[in-house]
């Protein structure tokens, strides 16, 4: 299952036309202790780059952007009780939401894992 990254440190796994979105390990390290995550409800429609979720660390609130256009099928309910999952398993259990992609062509602008690692190394 291919995984793509944005320059804003979101990741998306794509399985058919359904994508799972979260924030990268680099992003969670930068944010520090996550104390609250607001994930979108099923049915929400986003254009590529829309603000889709909010993640709050002890220090600051950050917006999470939707890496592709689509319609949300599920927000990760586990984050409501355990926002620290984003720290402990950012690219696994700490996923934010799943959505149906409107246009798989949106993925073409994103980085693959190797390109993202090179991108982060330069930050």
């Amino acid at each position: 299952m291919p995984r793509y990254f944005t320059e804003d440190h979101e990741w998306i796994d794509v399985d058919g036309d359904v994508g799972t979105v979260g924030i990268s390990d680099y992003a969670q390290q930068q944010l520090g202790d996550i104390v609250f995550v607001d994930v979108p409800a099923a049915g929400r429609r986003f254009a590529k780059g829309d603000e889709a979720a909010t993640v709050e660390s002890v220090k600051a609130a950050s917006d999470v952007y939707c890496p592709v256009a689509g319609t949300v099928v599920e927000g990760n309910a586990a984050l409501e009780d355990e926002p620290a999952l984003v720290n402990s398993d950012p690219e696994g259990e700490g996923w934010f939401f799943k959505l149906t992609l409107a246009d798989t062509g949106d993925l073409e602008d994103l980085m693959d894992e190797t390109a993202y690692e090179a991108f982060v190394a330069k930050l």
Partner: protein
Amino acid sequence: MSETMTEARDVELSGDPDGGEDAPIQLLPLDAWHRARGGRMVPFAGYEMPVQYDGIMAEHLWTREHAGLFDVSHMGQLLFTGAGVDQSLEAVLPGDIKGLGEGRMRYSLLLNDDGGIVDDLMVTRLPATGPFHDGEGEAPAIYMVVNGATKYDDIGYLLDVLPDAITMSLLDEQALLALQGPEAVTALARLVPGVDRLVFMTAGAFEWNGTPLWISRSGYTGEDGFEISIPGDVAAAFADALTEQPEVKPIGLGARDSLRLEAGLPLYGHDLDPDTTPVMADLGFALAKRRREAKDFVGAERIVSERENGPATKRVGLMVEGRQPVREGALVVGDDRVEIGRVTSGGFAPTIGAPIAMAYVPAALAVPGTVVTLAQRGKLHRATVAAMPFVPHRYVR
């Protein structure tokens, strides 16, 4: 993903992130020390400062349970000498400075003509024998610690108002370290015997390996602890000696902020500013009775009348419902969603495990138990006015 701002307009940032000054960023005496220990450095009050090492949550809880070492060398350490120095300082500070005994300290405020707060500070009467001055005996001396982001403005203001007979020096060769937490006394007394004899809000001269230290039992976390003024060139060696103690870990600015918020202590540039009076800020304890009666300090007219008639708005603590932090800049709104107040500090409280905040609200609502509505980024939150501190102080008196 990108950091987002709270919705309120023109949020004051005078204490954060860069001190609102155009001056080039300065380095702390412990700059290399922080970096070697994995401190994540950010600009704050004109300095590169460590915001965290291991993580804000862990550092916060460590300080509440053990002892945390904070580098607060960005703060301004000022020395005032000259005949009548206490009398002269009383012109701008509303506290009883003349009545301050040697080695005694007070929290005080630098005020403007309208009674607004220009800075908040700690003021200590030094013994005739020093430190920091020659100790000839006849020159009384006052030591003051002011906020980092405001220190140069404070100096300008004080130069204007103090008579020529008073000498003011910025002790910029001195570092300032804070050791805070229930085990601070154990760790520090091992290196500096006798510090356990100090009680809260007293200070004295000590020595470590031949280096003179000026140590007060005070701090900004609500815990027992000390603030240590030490020559900058010895600070790294002393910080090493402290962090070799099993009780002590270095703590960044992030946890300093969450600790002081839980302790109900206001932060200048956020909870206090030149439009805020000590009465609005609920800092009436800084107004000495003799000074209120004499009305002989800058801004006394407004402050005394406000104290008698009640302020329009007041600083309160808020327990925020739910888990989402409500931060500085969020609005307190009435039933019609119109702004009636403002959140000036807010965040997640690690000791409590819930979001808390400080806000200014109309005086009628400034009663513990009152439920208020907060608006942040288009979302409404309920909060209850709570007595401060949120976490009990544990000072050793």
